[in-house]
């Protein structure tokens, strides 16, 4: 397990270096740190002096190394608009996004597993056909449209749920949480449903197809021949084997959810990282954009590494190789 973990973590570091290179290149090409600092009313000569002082005339590689060094120390540059370190800006927005992603993941996991198993066991009955048909519809409708439809039905017409914002939040050790108030939870419902609407059908389909394949295997047939109960065969023998591929794909997909938050947060005016990102694009706040890319990239890498480690725990074959 130790060797396995070390290998995974090394890979994660390499991926982060590449993400850093991409982010840095964007900054080089598009951004102008001098503008971020001084504004318009400063002369060209002064700008050039500042450029030299900041090391902006150094070779690309030297600047990249400096960029990575700073990044490791948590310095991802200053936001031109907020006049604050970008990392600080992003971290202040992160709880909103992470809570949204968490709520969506919960919806996805809690619904896709039972529905996936159900449709695999009864592939041809009416409820399964309805679920599978519905899942195609779910995949095909873009997130922003789902979000607008949800707002129209539940906020505009029925007045059941609020249509935008996070509602009342509570500050718990610097973390602005909407989980702890009724108002916050109400505000969370529509955005998290909208965000899960793309991934949920994918997960149902993935679990269903993997499960159907597992149900055809010899070891499941042998389990029937041993006279085990249906429940044990479905939920232990078949499902545990279904889980392996689902975890691998699922980890990546949950990471992609973070990217989808940009759309959802914009529609719902949800004050998270995705909303901030679009604002930063409008303001050409390059440092903030690059910092966002790097933070989200890091989140992605961390999620994937954790997923791989969990996979190692579920799959006995990997565990053994790791132990040796």
């Amino acid at each position, binding site marked *: 397990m130790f060797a396995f973990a070390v290998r995974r973590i090394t890979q994660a570091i390499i991926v982060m270096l590449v993400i850093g290179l991409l982010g840095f290149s964007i900054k080089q090409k598009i951004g102008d740190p001098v503008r971020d600092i001084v504004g318009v009313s400063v002369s060209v000569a002064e700008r050039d002096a500042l450029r030299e002082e900041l090391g902006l005339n150094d070779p690309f590689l030297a600047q990249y190394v400096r960029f990575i060094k700073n990044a490791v120390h948590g310095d991802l540059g200053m936001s031109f608009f907020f006049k604050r370190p970008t990392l600080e800006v992003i971290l202040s927005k992160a709880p909103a996004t992470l809570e949204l992603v968490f709520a969506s993941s919960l919806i996805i996991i809690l619904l896709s597993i039972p529905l996936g198993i159900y449709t695999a066991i009864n592939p041809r009955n009416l409820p399964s056909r309805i679920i599978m048909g519905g899942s195609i519809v779910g995949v095909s409708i873009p997130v922003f449209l789902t979000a607008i439809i949800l707002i129209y039905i539940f906020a505009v017409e029925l007045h059941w749920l609020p249509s935008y914002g996070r509602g009342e939040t509570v500050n718990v050790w610097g973390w602005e949480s909407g989980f702890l108030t009724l108002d916050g939870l109400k505000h969370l419902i529509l955005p998290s449903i909208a965000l899960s609407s793309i991934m949920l059908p994918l997960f149902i389909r993935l679990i269903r197809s993997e499960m159907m394949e597992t149900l055809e*295997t*010899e*070891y*499941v*047939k*042998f*389990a*029937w*021949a*041993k*006279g*085990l*109960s249906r429940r*044990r065969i479905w939920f*232990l*023998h078949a499902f*545990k*084997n279904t889980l*392996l591929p689902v975890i691998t794909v699922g980890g990546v997909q949950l990471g992609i959810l973070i990217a989808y938050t940009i759309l959802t947060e914009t529609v719902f005016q949800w004050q998270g990282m995705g909303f901030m990102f679009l604002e930063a694009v409008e303001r050409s706040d390059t440092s903030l954009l690059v910092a966002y890319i790097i933070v989200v990239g890091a989140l992605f890498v961390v999620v994937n590494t954790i997923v791989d480690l969990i996979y190692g725990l*579920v*799959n*006995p*074959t990997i565990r*053994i190789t790791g132990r040796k």
Partner: protein
Amino acid sequence: MDHLLEVKDLEVKFALRMGDLTAINGVSFTLDRSERLGLVGESGAGKSVTGFSIINLISKPGYISGGSVIFEGRDLTRLTNEGMRHIRGNLISMIFQDPMMTLNPVLTIGTQMVETLQAHMDISRKEAEDISLEKLRKVHIPSPEKRLQQYPHEFSGGMRQRIVVAIALLTDPALVIADEPTTALDVTIQAEIMELLLELCESEGTGLILITHDLAVVSQVTQKIAVMYAGKIVEAGQTEDIIDNPRHPYTQGLIKAIPDGRNPGARLNQIPGTMPSLIDIPPGCSFHPRCMIRGDICRHESPALKNIHGYRSMAACHMLDTAEKQAGANVTK
């Protein structure tokens, strides 16, 4: 007349879009307590389907469309799912072909053994583990206490099949159905597993249905043989009768096809042609297109399995007089 198992006019069909295909067509045989029967034939003859239909576990879209399977006085084809569950793995257990595929890769051997016992008996995990250990010792697995905690991938193919044998015998079933139990193994391990199975069935008084295409194996293990062709039994009788004096031309062909080592380098005798697929089973005797002694009647009329004058075994062939002469000719040659 109290048989352990009596299969009567068993008929199995596969429901396909183009209509039902008959895979098993009127198969009948009996098995007494501690008796061993070999079901023999080429691939596609319906041996495995027959085996699986005894415990009503044919893969979809197959279903039992007729006949009965009387086991200890009960017709298994009429049992409910729950009733059948108490039979499977408890009174009748199965051994599958490929031990690499039969054991669940993500569960320990211990779990897979204990769950079988607990599915049929009201016992604690500790008691179930003790029975499992005892059975693992019987199939000669060294240090079974340690092995119980291990996963299937930590065992070799031969070891896994021993474990499968141990699982099959956990509940001391009255009948074991072994579907090609050694086909997927190395030749040396094949003999080991077969010997182990025979030894355990003999010592525990377990009935055995051995499904195989290997006549050599059958001749050493079973007392009775039923030869299947295209979903029917074409010859049935005592093992020595069928091996020494096969009556049906198909059985004769099978036996002649066994390499005997007396003439190294000589061409093996093979039966011309292949087993017909279920979609176009020829009319009349389904073997007639490949048969060397066919007559006109074979094209139109399906022969019944019947006793043959002067012999103990039964065969389904119109041309038995001719077959008899041929067998005689072979003996004199």
